[in-house]
């Protein structure tokens, strides 16, 4: 029951008590009178009954009014004290109760404050001990962080949802390479999806490989793949599993080790090409010379003119070889092909993956002939499987082939990977041309050809018709069967433990998720004035991310915006941003897509959010950017937890919750303040029974400020 209602009830009951007392007095008097006196009294009072009743009512009202201030103090003040006590219990330990005027309540407040002092002393003592215990842990952590920052590889740890839990500086650099051409959403940051940087199918495929290997326990549970940056850079990624704490082989996430191999590959590729030019390029010339020399030797009777021609060939080819040698030695840059990092894997696993991929594409699973368990190959399984799926769907589209068989057999030092189908009349010339056709399976970038995939494996691909069947055959290199390496029990790392991994996979809608585990973008805007409907515009947007109730000061958004109109003098006085500062800044329609990407998949939080949202929503049509994420307002939620407090302005809340006010009326500064307020508020909301996003929204909607519209 709210304080106001209780006050009203108390005032009413005083009035009612006075009325009852008068009624009782009258009844007692009446009972005391005999019949004659009662007749006289009736005669006396009956004509005046209205006036008497009014008099009684007046007395009751007077009593109620006289007592009201007292009641307000004795009901309102304890309520206020109770709320203030909750603040010092939860949000702000340094907070102390204001001493009320009433002497008895003042004594209570003083006692509570003393109790708080005692609590703080105990608390400090415990904290001091915890600090000491944590010092060594901290040191270990710092060593890890230092190590990570020194590494030349990028490290990214993710949970199973693909959300980033940790990354190092090098990973940030590599991410900017990967982000090229992927749009504004391709950002690295805590709790952001790694899928924005590396295609999800690629990650999923690597995860499948890792899981398979964990189950097999015959090899290191790692998967390697290469992905390309926007400008063709090659990033080699190695995935290692992070196992769940409760044992077993259950994954709780994975670590990606990323390395930009473009440069090292360029050097290597140049060497390869030089070697190629010297060996293969020399073969033809040598063949010509050798044939000519052998002919001259074998036929001494050769005619003079003919002999001259043979000698001419020898001279010409020798000269050509010398020139080629020079050219090769001098060669610089050349067009480069992608290098392929081949992963050693079981042939049966590769075939099973291809079966799954073809089933996914055609709807029917191809048959699989049993593969020798000792058959291991070196393969980039992702592209190889995609290539087979592409050939299958191409055959289905062009020649109506629906039934396929996959098989893998050994052929000396190579493995034959066949995609076979019942013999069809598909012309071989047509099929041979597919070798150089870009494979487009989905809208993704990078269209390799079957030829590229085969080349990447140091192999070849071709189509052939046999007696009963036709097939597309790929030759891939064999690998030694994988050794037993790490024992299952030793895989767990002892050195560190990232609690973040324990976050459950995202199975629920945001609505039912706990406020403490959501990711937030806390933002604020500065504007040309207060009336968006009358043409006022945003001039600055500032925002910061909050993940696991931690404020990420390193992941902020701070952008001045050219409003395309003059600022109002009153607004300039508030935020200090003037027209000169905004000249040359981007327009709002260019800024909003970037801001939308920054707050993707988060809950928006702002102080007096209705005001900021009004400005953002007005721009939805022109910018094409919608802000339809869940939204929370610290103004409304402050009213939920501290209904009895007079002010819910940001400064007042900061003071109550012990947040130091630094720069105000700078969008990023205010966003940072609001974020700190929000982090403290979540605990108070939980104490008040508001735990989930849905509960927070519903509680906010019930407050009196919720009806204010801009």
């Amino acid at each position, binding site marked *: 029951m709210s304080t106001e209602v209780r006050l009203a009830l108390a005032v009413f009951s005083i009035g009612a008590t006075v009325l009852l007392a008068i009624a009782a007095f009258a009844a007692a008097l009446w009972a005391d009178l005999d019949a004659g006196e009662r007749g006289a009294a009736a005669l006396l009072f009956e004509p005046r009954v209205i006036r008497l009743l009014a008099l009684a009512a007046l007395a009751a009202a007077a009593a109620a009014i006289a007592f009201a201030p007292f009641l307000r103090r004795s009901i309102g003040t304890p309520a206020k004290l109770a709320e203030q006590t909750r603040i010092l219990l939860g949000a702000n330990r340094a907070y102390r109760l204001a001493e009320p005027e009433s002497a008895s309540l003042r004594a209570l407040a003083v006692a509570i404050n003393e109790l708080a002092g005692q609590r703080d002393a105990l608390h400090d003592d415990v904290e001091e001990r915890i600090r000491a215990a944590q010092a060594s842990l901290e040191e270990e952590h710092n060593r890890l962080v230092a190590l990570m920052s020194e590494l030349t590889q990028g490290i990214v740890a993710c949970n199973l949802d693909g959300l980033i839990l940790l990354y190092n500086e090098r990973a940030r650099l590599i991410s900017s390479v990967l982000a090229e051409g992927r749009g504004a959403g391709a950002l690295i940051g805590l709790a952001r999806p790694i899928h924005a940087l590396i295609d999800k199918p690629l990650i999923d495929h690597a995860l499948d490989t890792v899981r398979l290997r964990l189950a097999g326990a015959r090899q290191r549970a790692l998967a390697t793949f290469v992905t390309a940056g926007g400008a063709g850079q090659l990033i080699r990624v190695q995935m290692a599993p992070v196992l769940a704490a409760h044992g077993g082989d259950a994954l709780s996430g994975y670590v990606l080790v990323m390395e930009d191999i473009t440069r090292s590959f360029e050097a290597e590729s140049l060497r390869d090409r030089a070697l190629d030019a010297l060996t293969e390029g020399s*073969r033809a010339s040598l*063949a*010509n010379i050798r*044939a000519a020399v*052998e*002919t001259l030797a074998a036929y001494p009777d050769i005619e003079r003119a003919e002999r001259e021609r043979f000698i001419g060939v020898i001279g010409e080819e020798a000269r050509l070889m010398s020139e080629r040698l020079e050219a090769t030695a001098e060669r610089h840059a050349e067009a480069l092909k992608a290098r392929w990092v081949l992963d050693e894997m079981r042939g049966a696993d590769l075939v099973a993956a291809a079966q799954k991929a073809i089933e996914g594409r055609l709807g029917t699973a191809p048959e699989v002939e049993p593969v020798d368990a000792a058959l291991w190959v070196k393969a980039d399984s992702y592209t190889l499987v995609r290539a087979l799926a592409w050939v299958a769907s191409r055959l289905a589209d062009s020649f109506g082939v629906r039934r396929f068989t996959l098989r893998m057999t050994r052929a000396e030092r*190579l493995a034959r990977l066949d995609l076979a189908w019942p013999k069809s009349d598909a012309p071989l010339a047509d099929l041979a041309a597919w070798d150089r056709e870009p494979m487009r399976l989905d809208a993704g970038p990078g269209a390799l050809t079957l030829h590229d995939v085969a080349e990447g494996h140091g192999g070849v691909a*071709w189509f*052939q018709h046999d007696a009963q069947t036709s097939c597309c055959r790929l030759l891939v290199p064999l690998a030694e069967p994988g050794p037993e390496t790490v024992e299952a029990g030793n895989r767990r790392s002892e050195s560190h433990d990232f609690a973040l991994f324990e976050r459950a996979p995202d199975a629920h809608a945001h609505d039912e998720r706990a406020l403490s585990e959501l990711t937030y973008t806390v933002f604020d805007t500065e504007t040309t004035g207060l009336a968006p409907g009358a043409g006022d515009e945003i001039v600055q947007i500032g925002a910061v991310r909050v993940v696991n109730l931690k404020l990420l000061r390193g992941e902020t958004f701070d952008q001045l915006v050219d409003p395309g109109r003059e600022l109002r003098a009153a607004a300039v006085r508030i935020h200090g941003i003037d027209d000169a500062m905004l000249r040359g800044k981007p327009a709002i329609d260019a800024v909003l897509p970037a801001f939308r990407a920054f707050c993707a998949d988060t809950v928006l939080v702002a102080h007096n959010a209705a005001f900021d949202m009004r400005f953002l929503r007005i721009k939805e049509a022109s910018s094409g950017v919608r802000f339809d994420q869940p939204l929370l307002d610290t103004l409304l939620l402050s009213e939920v937890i501290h209904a009895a407090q007079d002010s819910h302005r940001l400064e007042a809340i900061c003071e109550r919750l012990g947040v130091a006010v630094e720069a105000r009326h700078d969008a990023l500064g205010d966003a940072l303040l609001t974020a700190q307020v929000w982090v403290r508020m979540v605990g108070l909301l939980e104490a008040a029974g508001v735990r989930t996003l849905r509960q927070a929204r519903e509680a906010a909607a019930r407050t009196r400020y919720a009806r204010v519209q801009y």
Partner: protein
Amino acid sequence: MNTTGGKKILIADDEQNIVLSLEFLMKREGFDVLVATDGRTALQKVAEGRPDLVLLDVMMPGKSGFEVCQEIRAHPEWRSTKIIMLTAKGRETEMAKGIALGADAYMTKPFSTKELVTRVKEMLDV
């Protein structure tokens, strides 16, 4: 000499400098010799001249040796034509592809002409 009489060999290679030696060699061994310097001409000469054996270079303009080989094998009347593929590519995989596409033998450049002549004679039973 007369044992080889009547057998016809097509040399398909765009390298004039090897064609010179091979042509001389095969003629001296008593074979009838046809020459083609690109893939398309090679197929044309196969159709017109019906050679018993083709020395087929892989890297040719027009149509590659692999394609020519596959087309010869696809033609029922040319089934009996022997094919020796010649290539400057030394990779094992290339060789496997050549054999799979129907070549009878595969020789990597540089090869011994003596060995070549021996192989040719073996294949033609002369």
